[in-house]
């Protein structure tokens, strides 16, 4: 069921891209979607070694070792976006999973129960970003009766912690070597890291360009981008995709063309987007509201030494605010708010999210300190069954009115 979906997606996008050749039509998002669909084909195709992972696993390291890897929550997002998630959630409710838990995890668990998750060769779990995710991974490992490597990611980033994490990554290499029967090829790894570094440079340019006024990013351009592009790191594909975005954004910025016509209000969106089809983004656009930055569309890490990447990868992991104390996340959000000149922040308080939604009040306080209002939306980003679009729209409209009032007052209205 899922493999044909990805295969059709691949051929559909390939056709569309061929049609766009020689034109000036935007294509960066399609390129990105194509490569993710190709990843889907590899994951569900059953022809390559596959590893289900936690969100902060080192995907470029794994791909350099010939393993196709992906964070399991990706399947939850994909099911929600295609309208196929409800039976998965219902399946878990029937087997006693509490509906208080995160629906990303429940969707994956349900898909597993329904036999839709491909059997991995092994699993690589990460203790961050969340406890619930780690628990889901343990359940997956037991269901598939496959071995799981667990990476413990502490919340500090001092040298001793970097060393500890780097040591675990070296252990991971040994774990993978034994299970794939292929020793690590140092040169392949170095090349992959070089591509990671080049992608990083291009991503920095993309994000820098995205800061322009008006923002060159169209409504869906950077939706799910930062988190998902990490799946492609280490490959030439990632470099291509990042370059395509860079070039496209650069053209638009040079021409003074905005992604959202009539941009009036600039917002930052935290954590994750609503993955199922919802009227939210269209409504925002109709009101001239542009989401100019998503929290995960940032580069927080330095380039990695290709010849000895383990410390660099460890530092990269520890640079991501998801695994750090709340203040680190708030610092980043304040910086993004300033850099992107946002008028407000939307915090989709995803149901069941303890690590992210669990600091709702602290985030609000942090944004208040820099004078940026926050709209908390109590939503479930994966489960459409409790979605009340009317209520959401009312809140968003009220928020936009608030912003425009404040602007009016500030400008001496």
């Amino acid at each position, binding site marked *: 069921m899922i493999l044909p979906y990805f295969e059709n997606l691949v051929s559909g996008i390939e056709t569309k891209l061929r049609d766009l050749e020689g034109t000036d039509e935007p294509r960066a998002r399609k390129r990105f979607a194509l490569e993710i669909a190709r990843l889907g084909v590899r994951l569900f195709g059953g022809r390559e070694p596959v590893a289900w992972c936690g969100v902060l696993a080192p995907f470029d390291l794994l791909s350099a070792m010939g393993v196709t890897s992906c964070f399991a929550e990706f399947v939850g997002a994909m099911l929600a976006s295609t309208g196929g998630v409800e039976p998965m959630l219902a399946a878990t*409710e*029937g*087997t*006693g999973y509490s509906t208080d838990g995160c629906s990303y995890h429940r969707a994956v668990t349900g898909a597993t129960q329904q036999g839709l998750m491909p059997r991995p060769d092994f699993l690589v779990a990460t203790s961050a970003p969340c406890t619930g995710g780690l628990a889901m991974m343990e359940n997956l490992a037991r269901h598939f009766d496959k071995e799981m490597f667990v990476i413990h990611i502490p919340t500090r980033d001092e040298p001793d912690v970097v060393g500890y994490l780097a040591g675990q990554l070296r252990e991971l290499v040994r774990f993978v070597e034994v299970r794939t029967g292929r020793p690590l090829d140092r040169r392949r790894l170095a090349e992959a890291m070089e591509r990671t570094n080049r992608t990083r440079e291009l991503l920095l340019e993309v994000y820098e360009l995205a800061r322009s006024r008006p923002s060159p990013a169209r409504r869906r351009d950077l939706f799910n981008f930062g988190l998902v592009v990490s799946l492609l790191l280490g490959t030439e594909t990632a470099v291509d995709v990042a370059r395509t975005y860079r070039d496209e954004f650069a053209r638009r910025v040079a021409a003074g063309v905005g992604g959202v016509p009539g941009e009036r209000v600039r917002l930052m969106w935290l954590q994750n987007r609503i993955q199922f089809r919802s009227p939210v983004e269209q409504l925002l656009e109709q009101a001239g509201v542009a989401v100019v930055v998503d929290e995960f569309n940032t580069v927080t890490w330095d380039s990695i030494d290709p010849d000895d990447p383990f410390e660099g990868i460890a530092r990269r992991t520890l640079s991501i605010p998801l695994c750090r104390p709340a203040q680190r996340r708030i610092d980043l959000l304040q910086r993004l708010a300033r850099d992107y000149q946002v008028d407000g922040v939307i915090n989709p308080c995803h149901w069941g999210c303890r690590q992210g939604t669990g600091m709702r009040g602290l985030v609000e306080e942090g944004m208040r300190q820099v004078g940026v209002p926050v709209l908390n939306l109590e939503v479930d980003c994966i489960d459409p069954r409790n979605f*009340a679009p009317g209520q959401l729209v009312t809140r968003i409209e009220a928020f936009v009115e608030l912003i425009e009032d404040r602007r009016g007052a500030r400008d001496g209205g």
Partner: protein
Amino acid sequence: MADDTHYLGVDIGSLSCDAVLVDAWGEVVAWAVVPTGARNLEAIASARQQVLERAGLDANAPVSVVATGYGRSRVEDRLAAVTEITCHARGIQALLPGTTLLVDIGGQDSKAILLDSKGRVVEFAMNDKCAAGTGRFLEAMARAMQVELQQLGELDRLARSGSLTLSSMCTVFAESEVVSLVADGAEVPQIVGALHRAIAARTQALVRRVCPDTAARAVAMSGGVARNLGVVRAIGSLLGCEIAVPPEPDTVGALGAALIARERAGA
């Protein structure tokens, strides 16, 4: 055990206090339903008095009492206080032998009980944190549609095959939603159909906690809501099975309590 000994089961619920009297052979002799009101003790006394009168017995006739329901600990002179879960299982097994799954939807809570051929509880699940789908919920909805509660069961038969769904199960919000639907001109039978489907969906979730596969099971329903055949049909449709409803479905707990009194006193 004297042949003239009788056994009384009293179920003190939030809305009504039900009493059932059985004889030494376990046959029902009389029953009574009294509104609980604010004073439990008065309701209990009244139910006991009524049932003895109807049985043609003296007010002081020897009676062994088992109490159930949330007010069970308030009944004095009782042989035992037994939970409504255990009592409902015993009661339904006597009324509809062979039942292995009982769905009880009362005034403000609902239960799913898996039972064996002797009426013993194998597993149970309760939903007593939320009134959605219970008797009170249906009362509120009937008011919002300005129909009688008793009419709901037949109204959905008039509905054309429905695609209307309620998005809210919270009693308060569902009421607002129903009022809006009525104001927008939606047909009452359609709304009733949607209500019944919503209750059935919640009930199905409760049932799945104790019984993953309901097809081909002998399923019964008890509680006041079981009088609403529309709900019964909707639940049966989702569970994929026929649902049997005994006459006087709200007295199943009291009957079970009476039978337990007979077992324990006679033993």
